[in-house]
């Protein structure tokens, strides 16, 4: 069994048995409220909004990893490819009930893409028609921060950013994830 298939099964099993649930629309609408509020507070400075969302995600990721490890009870991943499957098929399943596709690996196995067929955070959303939002705002940027925060807690420094989004008129929603380095045990995590 491939690591991806195995991870998919674990993810689905956990979603069914170990996850307390709420109405999906409550989550979707709450997230929409957060982004809209940021856009208002930063007066349409979408770069700053992206940054703030990433920061919020980072805070969430650092706490979410505990919940993830407690629920999934999975061991250390052997390599970054296994980590990618664990994120896509277990992590995203537990928290957003989706399983993005892992693809576009670089030959050194340090970079991959997550392609989202579905994104509950973006349901109901149409970006502002101001001639800028579709070029500048990454609506779901919080997810990049979540990955960075969560993986930092398990000694991996990564960098994540969106490269396309259907909300911008792209045909796919794709996030690029790169491993920067494994953090040595003695290094404390970057606190914000």
């Amino acid at each position: 069994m491939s690591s991806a298939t195995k991870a998919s099964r674990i993810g689905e099993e956990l979603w069914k048995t170990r996850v307390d649930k709420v109405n999906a629309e409550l989550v979707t609408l709450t997230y929409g409220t957060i982004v809209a509020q940021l856009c208002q507070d930063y007066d349409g400075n979408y770069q700053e909004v992206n940054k703030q969302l990433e920061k919020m995600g980072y805070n969430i990721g650092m706490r979410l990893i505990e919940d993830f490890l407690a629920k999934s009870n999975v061991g250390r991943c052997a390599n970054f490819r296994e980590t990618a499957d664990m994120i896509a098929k277990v992590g995203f399943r537990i928290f957003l009930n989706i399983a993005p596709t892992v693809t576009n690996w670089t030959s050194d196995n340090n970079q991959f893409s997550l392609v989202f067929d579905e994104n509950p955070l973006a349901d109901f959303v149409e970006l502002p028609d101001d001639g800028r939002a579709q070029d500048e705002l990454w609506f779901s940027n919080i997810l990049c921060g979540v990955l960075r925060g969560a993986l930092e807690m398990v000694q991996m420094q990564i960098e994540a950013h969106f490269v396309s989004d259907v909300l911008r008129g792209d045909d796919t929603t794709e996030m690029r994830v790169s491993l920067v380095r494994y953090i040595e045990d003695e290094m404390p995590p970057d606190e914000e």
Partner: protein
Amino acid sequence: MSYYFTVLSPTDVPLFNIAFGTSKSGGDGIARFRFPDTAQYMNQFIIHSSLDVVEEAQWMNGNMYLKHIDTYPPASAYISAFLTPSGARFLLLHQPPQLPTNASSATTGSSSLLGSSFSGSAGSSSRASASSVAANPTSPQTEEAVRQFMTEVYENYVKTVMSPFYRQGMEIKSSVFRSKVTAAGRKWL
């Protein structure tokens, strides 16, 4: 039949407007108002003068669709209303085609809109029966067709307001929304 449809905010700010003609009984979907030069102004004026009636009916009748609520005889304009629970008003003005005997008085308007007006209105009125949607603004068939139209527009309106970036009172500028309203008009009216 010519139609002018507008969405007003709870404080009467126009959020969306569209003019179109019937697609029933061989109609081509193009609006031909009786006084084309002043139609834009007149339609808005007539709609706004019906708001008092809407506001009164709003608290006596809990239905979303209030049916035909007002008539403005000088322009043979009939107004139907639909109220969303969140306070937006959908108002539809319908104006039946002019009788062929009077049509010549309208030929002084702009040529692009009126070029086919004479034959078009005469043709549709002779073909349509008195109870059809295209001819009689207050028949039960028309009330039902308007209800279907309003309901379909409401569905698209809800999709608009569900977006976190939409704020109450914002003009609806989406061309997709416009095309959905046009399609609903073609389908039901």
